[in-house]
């Protein structure tokens, strides 16, 4: 809410500077920003009662420990009930409805310049002197008013919810289809206003208006909330009614309107009518002084507590218990519980005056899975990867390029960018864009990773999975000044990922080829920890990059939530004191067999004393038959209890070759 400083200063009868006045309100919960000669108040949604000069005045006086004193002038009015003026009222939506009929208006002139400037500074457009006056009283007192041209009304009025969807021409000429959930002001012709939101075009005041009906009402906040949005509207009236308007203020507001009307027009007669005066039951809240002091860490006396609340309009009530009891003023819609009173007392006392305690710690913390992803990310950083973060919104094309058909996207119903209506199903899309951007900036070698959630729809629910995805891209071949070439290929990637997983002590890591991924080419592998798939790695499929990157790239994705880093009981093997011996075996084998198959046969068949197995090299070409490959395998033998004899090693090597020959028809390469 924007208020002209000079106007507010006079209203509050204070000499405080603009900055100091703003500071006073900020400290009690109404954050202010000074914009030139205007103070912009950030009024939180629970304090609709402060959306007026009178509301600000009440808070200001409370800060000076003064009980609120109304300084405005009013006309004395008498309201009567008349079914020919106000007939039916739906009490679930309307607590009270007051109408002041003013007839024979002449010499209508504009509000004085101070009031006009005040309205303009508050962002309220000047429309017609009678409408402007209604708006002025709203800003002064906090209760919205609506001014009808009563010559276009066919009384009596009914305040009812429409039975069905009904077209209605609002002020300005737009036609709105009024929903049955919206309370309306209806005359004998039909809807003339959407209650608390906007008036009708037909009954709006104009230069020719001679008679008016001024409405002041209390509409139930629950029935107004979110209604304006349905019609694409956000009016000053709906803003206030949604937050709650003092239900005891309406007749007084009409008296104020009439008082000010005399300054800008002449009229023949007035008539004031009340449709309902069902007063809301006064609310009372009890307060335990001891509980309050435990809650706040203060030691306030009952007298001090009473004084604080009374300056804010609460009335101390007699009680037979040790507790205090207060009646809540009608303008405070945010008061329900004892803790609500605590806040009021502490606001008066000043949050900054509450004593400070040293930090407390909790019971012994239990290990969470949080550490697995953090450790993995730390490893990537030390491996030269730059971490990136991106928005998770993607286009349908990107989603489809990176996710298989069995992944249904999580789709937003109100995306901020209509070209990106889906939540990402993979982190790679943004990583490709990041490569593309930085290549344009002249970077030629990049290792990126991102940690975040990916999303998809599962039946009528949604799933989110934590991924850490990485991408390695060399835009140009990397050479040193000495012309040494630095290569990065599938096997470098494999080493990089395995190094990290093994450093994390992930148990039973296994890799298995996966040629059916959308993101990767056929040169890709699933990563397992035991039987649980914990990630993938491979050569990036150029189609998946949507032309964002031109050269081969390598990537991985790890699912950190599936990696367990819980410490397990170790079963230590005795360390052998005896020397190890290695033997190489050079074989010829058909190319169609993978190294993994060879490894499996050798490791699963209990070759005595075999400690480890490795690949020294592979060779194809001169001297090697077509369709075959030469492999040099290195066998390491060791016994935990003795030094091995040459004959024992030879026996094991014979078995190894026998197994290879039987399984793959392998031959010794001479």
């Amino acid at each position: 809410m924007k208020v002209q400083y000079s106007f507010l200063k006079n209203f509050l009868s204070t000499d405080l500077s603009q900055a100091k006045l703003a500071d006073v309100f900020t400290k009690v919960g109404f954050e202010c920003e000074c914009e030139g000669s205007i103070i912009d108040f950030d009024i939180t949604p629970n304090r609709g009662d402060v959306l007026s000069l009178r509301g600000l005045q009440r808070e200001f006086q409370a800060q000076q420990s003064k009980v609120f004193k109304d300084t405005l002038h009013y006309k004395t009015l008498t309201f009567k009930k008349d079914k020919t003026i106000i007939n039916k009222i739906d009490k679930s939506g309307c607590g009270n409805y007051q109408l002041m009929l003013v007839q024979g208006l002449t010499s209508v002139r504009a509000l004085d310049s101070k009031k006009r400037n005040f309205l303009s500074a508050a962002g309220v457009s000047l429309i017609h002197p009678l409408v402007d006056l209604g708006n002025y009283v709203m800003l002064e007192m906090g209760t919205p008013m609506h001014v009808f041209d009563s010559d276009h009304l066919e009384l009596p009025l009914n305040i009812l919810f429409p039975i069905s969807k009904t077209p209605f021409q609002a002020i300005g000429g737009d036609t709105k289809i009024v929903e049955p959930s919206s309370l309306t002001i209806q005359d004998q012709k039909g809807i003339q206003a959407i209650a608390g939101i906007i008036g009708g075009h037909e009954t709006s005041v104009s230069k020719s208006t001679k008679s008016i009906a001024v409405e002041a009402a209390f509409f139930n906040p629950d029935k107004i909330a979110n209604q304006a949005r349905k019609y694409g509207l956000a009016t000053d009236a709906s803003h206030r009614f949604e937050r709650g308007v003092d239900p005891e203020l309406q007749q007084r507001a009409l008296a104020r309107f009439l008082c000010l009307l005399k300054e800008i027009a002449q009229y023949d007669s007035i008539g004031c009518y009340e449709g309902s005066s069902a007063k809301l039951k006064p609310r009372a809240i009890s307060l335990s002084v001891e509980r309050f002091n435990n809650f706040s860490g203060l030691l306030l006396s009952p007298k001090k507590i009473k004084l604080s609340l009374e300056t804010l309009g609460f009335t101390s009530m007699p009680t037979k218990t040790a507790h205090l009891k207060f009646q809540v003023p009608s303008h405070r819609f945010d008061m329900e519980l004892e803790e609500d009173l605590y806040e009021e007392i502490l606001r008066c006392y000043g949050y900054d005056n509450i004593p400070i305690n040293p930090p407390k710690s909790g019971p012994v913390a239990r290990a969470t899975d949080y550490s697995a992803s953090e450790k993995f990310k730390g490893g990537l950083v030390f491996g030269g990867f730059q971490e990136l973060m991106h928005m998770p919104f993607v286009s349908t094309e990107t989603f489809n390029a990176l996710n298989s058909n069995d992944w249904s996207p999580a789709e937003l119903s109100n995306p901020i960018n209509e070209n990106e209506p889906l939540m990402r199903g993979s982190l790679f899309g943004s990583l490709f864009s990041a490569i593309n951007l930085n290549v344009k900036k002249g970077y030629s070698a990049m290792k990126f990773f991102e940690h975040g959630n990916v999303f998809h729809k599962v039946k009528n629910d949604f799933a989110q999975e934590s991924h850490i995805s990485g991408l390695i891209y060399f835009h140009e071949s990397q050479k040193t000044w000495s012309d040494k070439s630095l290569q990065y290929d599938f096997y470098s990637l494999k080493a990089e990922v395995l190094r990290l997983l093994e450093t994390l002590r992930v148990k039973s890591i296994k890799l298995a080829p996966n040629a059916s991924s959308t993101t990767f080419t056929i040169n890709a592998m699933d990563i397992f920890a035991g039987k649980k798939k914990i990630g993938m790695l491979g050569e990036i499929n150029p189609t998946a990059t949507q032309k964002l990157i031109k050269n081969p790239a390598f990537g991985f994705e790890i699912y950190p939530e599936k990696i367990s880093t819980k410490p397990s009981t170790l079963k230590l093997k005795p360390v052998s004191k005896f020397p190890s011996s290695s033997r190489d075996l050079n074989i010829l084998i058909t190319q169609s067999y993978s190294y993994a198959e060879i490894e499996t046969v050798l490791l699963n068949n209990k070759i005595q004393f075999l400690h480890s197995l490795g690949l020294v090299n592979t060779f194809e070409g001169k001297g090697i038959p077509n369709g075959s490959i030469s492999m040099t395998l290195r066998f390491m033998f060791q016994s935990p209890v003795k030094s091995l004899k040459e004959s024992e090693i030879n026996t094991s090597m014979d078995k190894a070759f026998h197994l290879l020959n039987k399984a793959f028809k392998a031959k010794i390469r001479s």
Partner: protein
Amino acid sequence: MQIPQDLIETAALKLKSVQSEAEFFQLRSQYLGKKSFVLSSFAQLKSLDANSKVAAAKELNILKGKLNKLFEAAIKEIQAKTDVSLLDVTLPADPYLVGAEHPIAEISQRVINYFLPLNYQVFSGNEIETDFFNFEALNFPENHPARQMHDTFYLNAGSKSEYLLRTHTSNSQIHAMLREPLPLYMLSPGRVYRCDSDTTHLPMFTQIEGLVVDEDINFGDLKGIIINFLEYFFNEKMEVRFRPSYFPFTEPSAEVDIKFGNNGWLEVLGCGMVHPNVLKGCNIDTQKYRGFAFGMGIERLAMLYYGVEDIRDFYSSNLDFLNQF
């Protein structure tokens, strides 16, 4: 037989100026070759009487031994020098990539690092959430204007349940209170979403939520930990201000401002005592337990800490920007 006293010293001195193996062997020949003083002196022993012969032979053997040791040590040193070709060690290293955490991750970790030693458990919550956990259980009644403070993204669920992108990490409070035993000291870092975008707002940003539910918790405990944390984070004594505010899930609620650098008051986080309705909704006895909660925007802290002016830079993937951290 007259043995020069400075033979060893002279040999050692000459060896120091030797640059190559050739020079070494030439010098060695002078001192240990056939025509050297030591070896030619052995040939002259036969001309001495028996007693003198024994004494001189002993002295010559000692001298020969010392010379041998001296030359053996020297050749090793010369060979070590000549085996390694001299490099220009000032030439550049092979190309390498320097890794780095994202500044937002780094700041998040800095926050978490304060709370871990205080035994706060870290929980990450759901980014796609139901209306119940994001609003209702946090005391945001349906249609309440407080919901309008959060420009919410909704999802097409095709079911009656209303799914949305969480607007704050406070949803984790509810999950934790319903699941974990009390007392509860927890922290929940994560991404949150609001339908908003400009130089200071993004549709996605990072929050860290803290929650404590324990016996005998009061407002002074909340103030204490917040001030202590801020001084840890900014590594200096801070001027901190608590001012009343409104969050539906805390009562009383406060915004916390600090004075940092040459600026006036800067808002850094929101906090408050947990609203009794929230505790009751999680089946917590409000006569026995009270709690406090706080939440901070990591981008906001990072912008202050590093002096970043445009929040969008954090998510630009621009290495020119990121390499500076």
